[in-house]
């Protein structure tokens, strides 16, 4: 009993995959980036809220050691170079370069995880010592989970690209979205780095609150 139809255009020639905002996965990845970005922003807001409650900041602790956080920042910035390269390679369907790029990205994350281990060891505060220690560990743990999940994604994608599925168009879209997500992981580390490492030093000078 449905309505009679009137045919207009035939769309069988339309492509089946595309990059950027034209692809559905882009919207999904951006959706999750918004969620996690809001989570980071609120965690940083919680940090400043707790700071406003204290006379002395950081309370009964030295600020975290600057070396390891700065090293992580530098290595992250450097990791953007292969990341941009592999994203471009994927968007130009260059299979060989994409494969090499993904292997590099998988390897680049390992020193980051090692550095992150040193960062945790040099926070100069336990997570159960006080609210400052708790929020500091929470910020670092939040970012580390994103580091790990994206690393696993990159490993899986790298493995996938070496199979014969690698040449499919959608896989290149996945690699491009993974590159976008790595941008998010790197960019989100910058405000966290400033908050974890520099804010305790800035407040060291004068008493606040």
């Amino acid at each position, binding site marked *: 009993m449905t309505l*009679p139809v*009137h045919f207009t255009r035939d769309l069988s020639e339309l492509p089946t995959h595309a990059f950027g905002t034209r*692809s559905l996965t882009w*919207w999904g990845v951006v959706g999750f980036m918004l*969620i996690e970005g809001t989570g980071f922003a609120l965690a940083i807001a919680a940090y400043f*809220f707790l700071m406003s409650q204290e006379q002395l900041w950081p309370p009964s602790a030295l600020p975290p050691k600057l070396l390891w956080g700065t090293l992580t920042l530098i290595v992250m910035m450097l990791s953007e170079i292969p990341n941009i390269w592999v994203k471009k390679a994927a968007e130009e369907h260059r299979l060989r370069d994409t494969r090499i790029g993904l292997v590099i990205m998988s390897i680049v994350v390992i020193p980051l995880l090692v550095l992150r281990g040193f960062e945790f060891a040099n926070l100069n505060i336990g997570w159960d010592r006080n609210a400052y220690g708790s929020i500091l560990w*929470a910020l670092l743990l939040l970012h580390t989970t994103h580091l790990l999940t994206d690393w696993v994604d990159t490993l*899986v994608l790298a493995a996938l690209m070496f199979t014969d599925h690698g040449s499919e168009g959608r896989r290149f879209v996945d690699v491009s979205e993974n590159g976008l997500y790595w941008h998010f992981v790197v960019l989100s580390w910058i405000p966290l780095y400033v908050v974890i490492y520099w804010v305790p030093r800035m407040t060291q000078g004068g008493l606040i609150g």
Partner: protein
Amino acid sequence: MSRRGDDPKALPRDGRDLTGDALHERLSLTWCTQPGFWGWLTTVDHKLVGRRYIFTALVFLVLGGILALMMRVQLARPENGLISADRYNQIFSMHGTTMMFLFAVPVMEAMAVYIIPLMLGTRNIAFPRLNAFSYWVFLFGGIMIWVAFLFNVGPEAGWFSYVPLAGPQFSPGKRTDFWAQMITFTEVAALATSVELVATIMKQRAPGMSLNRMPLFAWGVLVTSLMVIFAMPAVMLSSSFLIADRLVGTQFYNPTEGGDALLWQHLFWFFGHPEVYIIFIPALGFVSQITETFTRRPVFGYAAMVLALVSIGILAFGLWVHHMFATGLPRLGYSFYTAASMMIALPSGVQIFCWIATMWAGRPRFTVPMLWVIGFIVTFVIGGLTGVMVASVPLDLQLHDTYFVVAHFHYVLIGGAVFPLLGAITFWFPKFSGRMMDETLGKLSFVIGFIGFHLTFFPMHFTGLMGMPRRVYTYPSDIGWNMLNMISSIGAFVFASALLLFMANAIVSYRKGLLSGSNPWEASSLEWAVPSPPPPYNFAHIPVVEGRTPLWDAGGTLSVVTGLRVEDRELLLTTAIDAEPDLREPSPLPTIWPLLSAIALTALFIGSIFNPWAIVWGAIPLALALIVWFWPKGPPEAEPVIE
């Protein structure tokens, strides 16, 4: 099922030479769900997952309603010893938690999961496997908290569990841990569903359905989903901090170690207030669709309505502190939040005006959905006005945490969201089941429901003004609250009987109702262009839209586009703003992996209540399940297929 590796040009496609019944058989074969229990577990059809999502949420409504009746029986008489303090605290905490987290938010998202793809003219929701995953996570979360409740481990500190009462010292045992973990379950489910809905609305609209031609319900769901994306992380953060405090001894909320009880209130209400609008805005979408259909004309002031929806969505994030007027924050800050809370009355007022103007300028038919809309308007305006009252600081200091506030939020939540929901279920019931709900039973349940609701909650305005605080399991007999509480209790049973009548009507009509055909109400939106219940593939040919009311503008024939594959699941992606045809997107086949991933996630969450290391060990099976879910199964294809 489909050939592999053929030349893409030769693959059969829908079009002039393949249409009508022939196309129906082949598309049904491609898009159908396997029969039996295995098919039930592996389906990715937004209609099957959506219907089961709605049904589960309504089961939680009934469970929450039973708890409400127990509370009203306990409060019917002063100094009643029927229910002990500990049991009553668990009951009112579970009532609030079930209604807010397990019924209200999920049922609105479930209705959107079912209706949006049909309304936008596409064949399935975006990321349908994620949709199935989110349903299972929601279901397991709900089962976990209710099993805990039945074993005396239900939450006992209220649905918003203020710290330090919910902290490690004053809430011993695992009760609040299960509550905090349940929050994580329902938030993962709600966030996943809202990402799917945003992607579906932005990328899968029928060609020609530009943003300014999109139905108002779709606008409501878009605003709601964006609010979920920005609001829910706040409660995930605060409940994770709480469970860390309780299990590994962090100091987030320990006042003596730099923590602060207000950190919880700020984070929770930053989510809490947008959440009540997340429940309320889809209901505005229901009212717009119902009003449009039963006044036989487009809603008056489309631009004003969309602007109102968007401004409510944005404003909702700016007024959470009106829940904290009594905590002693600086008075200057409060006056900002009073102004913001008052301002939100403006877009709501505009919307109410536009619906009534639509009725006034149209030819309204008072069917059951329209009656629920009338009931909504009357009740919600009262609730909105009492909301304006509690927005003023001095007034709120007298009304906060009393039964006046209980009356206010039941007026805006039941009046504002459940009335439109019942209207929407009656309105879309033919599309769900192919049969109409009985009209007289429907009218009866509306009348009894309306009377019962006001009989229950209108007296609460007075009990609140007369000093009765919230969440008391009993009250003294000599203060003058006895009569009003008895009236409320009687009203509660009348209202409950109306809901039971509505549910009986739905269950009976599901099998024995009048056959409805595809468009029994002569509505205007695309979901009424497909048969009821819709075939697995929704649209044989993707429709083209020229105006805001496609079926009314289409007159006799529906113009469509063709060219999508028939042997493999495929739907059309269009550009975000103007909905120009852009890509042919493969739609995933049924798979068991969302269920297995949900089970792995459940094991991780429940395990982490008893041993924090469960997060590390639980992450391995979860990662494996997600990897196998993502990994392409069949051989590579010229034209992509997602196994």
